């Protein structure tokens, strides 16, 4: 049997997943990370994107809109800002969100306090759409 580790994915509103996994792929701010069991301690911020993990029943995909991941040799904890199960993603809603964010950015001065927040929102929406497209392809 393959080596395993425990993974917890929680967002402020709910607990998404808690269980045993064999491998994790996470969207780190500095690039994607593959985590195998017995990884050394690591702590990283996450950017909006796809979080995949391999359980004994197959691969599972989640969308996270950023957050923090803590890796201990046998336990991995993902503290997501928001996490959505891949099948719950809504392309229409994501596109609307992207449009809204782009409109809001128009004529905004980058010094504005809201600028960063809107930009983050835009990036999250883009990442969601990208992920929907990718999954859509694999499903078809």
């Amino acid at each position, binding site marked *: 049997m393959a080596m395993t580790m425990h993974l917890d994915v929680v967002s*402020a509103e709910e607990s998404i997943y808690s269980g045993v996994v064999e491998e994790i792929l996470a969207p*780190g701010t500095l690039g994607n990370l593959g985590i195998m069991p017995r990884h*050394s*301690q690591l702590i990283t911020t996450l950017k909006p994107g796809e979080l995949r993990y391999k359980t004994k029943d197959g691969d599972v995909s989640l969308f996270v809109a950023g957050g923090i991941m803590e890796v201990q040799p046998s336990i991995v904890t993902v503290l997501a800002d928001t996490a959505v199960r891949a099948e719950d993603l809504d392309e229409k809603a994501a596109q609307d969100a992207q449009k809204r964010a782009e409109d809001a950015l128009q004529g905004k001065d980058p010094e504005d306090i809201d600028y960063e927040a809107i930009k983050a929102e835009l990036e999250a929406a883009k990442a969601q759409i990208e992920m929907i497209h990718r999954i859509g392809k694999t499903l078809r």
Partner: protein
Amino acid sequence: MAGLKEIRSQIGSIQNTKKITKAMEMVAASKMRRARERMDASRPYAEKMRQVVSHMALGHLEYQHSFFKERDTVKRVGYIIISSDRGLCGGLNTNLFKKALESIAEWKEKDVEVDIAVFGNKALAAFKRFGVVAETTGLGDKPGVNDLLGTIKVMLDAYEEGRIDRLFLVENEFVNSMTQTPRVTQLIPVVAAEMDEIKHHWDYLYEPESKEVIDMLMTRYIESLVYQGIVENIACEMSARMIAMKSATDNAGDMIDKLKLVYNKARQAAITQEISEIVAGAAAVE
């Protein structure tokens, strides 16, 4: 003897009040159920957060965040007080404020100034005279984490800049639907986990820089604690209101029973009097 009509209208008005309190009780009961679900749902995040932070407190890190450092002198302390927006929930807020005032009074005795940030209208009204530095009210039943960030940031900045040397959270703890207890906990400096005998000599790998990650994590940690407090307070508010309204309904019922007794006695007396008058009149004719 009070007039029959007056007693009847009094019974009527109490009955109306009873209807209202009964309705409020039922609304609070169903809201409480949802608030408890939300409270339970947000618990794992706070729990995991606490776990990660206590891992950090145990590890041997290259960068020590200021929230871990105990300051030698305490000149000013901060309080974040979480209350409900609305009243009619029994002694929930009053008990909480009493606890907060006790704790504040202890600091005042030592000549330590106090800064207060509040969530909820009731706390704002109660602590106005102490000078409230930040407030958030009207959160409703489903607060998002984003709604809280402003007020929390004011206090965290105050700590970073050294304007306050300690930060406390005053909140209601949901024990069960009958019991809620107010408590004061220290948010910053972070109280070290109790198992500090097993100090490890490892450090994390950081992506990106350690300072950036840990700063973000610590802010999130405090935010999650406050969010948890707010969600818990809503559950407390609803169950306290449910209990308060239940006893109000019961009291209204008792009052109606008593008034009915008085009413019936008065009615009986009036009838008796009438009969005796008729009998006396008939006797006089004969």
